[in-house]
């Protein structure tokens, strides 16, 4: 997989499991997979594939 622009190996499991195992705040992120938006309610339904490209995004300070 590619996660946030970097190679991230493979992961067997759901998106929610990936986020929790890597210490992301699942209540504060939105995920883009191959250009498709995945919201929090769908995290546990999405099974990750080896060629997935994910952007894991959150809010930060900005004007």
């Amino acid at each position: 997989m590619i996660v946030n622009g970097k190679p991230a190996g493979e992961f067997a499991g759901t998106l929610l499991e990936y986020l929790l195992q890597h210490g992301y705040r699942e209540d504060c992120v939105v995920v883009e997979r191959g250009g498709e938006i995945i919201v929090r309610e769908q995290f546990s339904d999405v099974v990750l594939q080896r060629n997935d490209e994910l952007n894991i995004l959150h809010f930060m300070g900005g004007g």
Partner: protein
Amino acid sequence: MDDIFELGGKAFASRFILGSGKFSLPLVQAVTEQGGAQMITLALRRANAGGQENILDFIPPDVTIIPNTSGARDAEEAVRIARLARALGCGDFVKVEIMRDTRYLLPENAETIHATEILATEGFAVLPYVYPDLAVARALKAAGAAAVMPLGAPIGSNKGLLTREFIEILVREIDLPILVDAGIGRPSHACEAMELGCAAVMCNTAVATAGDPAVMARAFKLAIEAGRAAYLARPGRVLEHGAEASSPLTGFLDE
């Protein structure tokens, strides 16, 4: 006196929009509270792995989140960021900012009109950040913008209302709230914008680069309130020539 500011279907008592960049997270909370801000802008970026605090933890729950599209270089990227930001569940507001120029950070007005059109159709309350231009502001109104955000001076410059004449034209001619954004460096600049009839002022760098940001946030709050009150009070006329005594000129030594 009730002076409610309506924007994007919501009512606000404060006319101070705070930008949250360049602050430590605890300071975000302090400046929001001291400034009495009810709207705060945020950026959307990639998150890092590993447990961490999130800026949302430091924003009081009654404050409205306005995601910005910073980083977008064209309408397509701005729309993408806006949709992702809305998916985070913080409401329908979006501040559209589109820039290609990295030296002066001036906005791409034409792309901004295009993005506004798309996002307004999708139900966003769109706050487009633009160079103040009457034709552009009219196009934004037609595109369904909720307000127009003209820049006062280049982003982060703290130079004040360099575009004052053109912002005044927008206030007079455009039937939308005019929110001055960018370049406001001092409370006096914010006060001046409000005296002109702007509906609100946004600032970030002016507060973030102050010696004491929390106290500066409070100073901005007071200045914005003063300017708004002065606008509502309708400032007195300016004499073109000469003077007009404030004290009676007769009644004592002239007798």
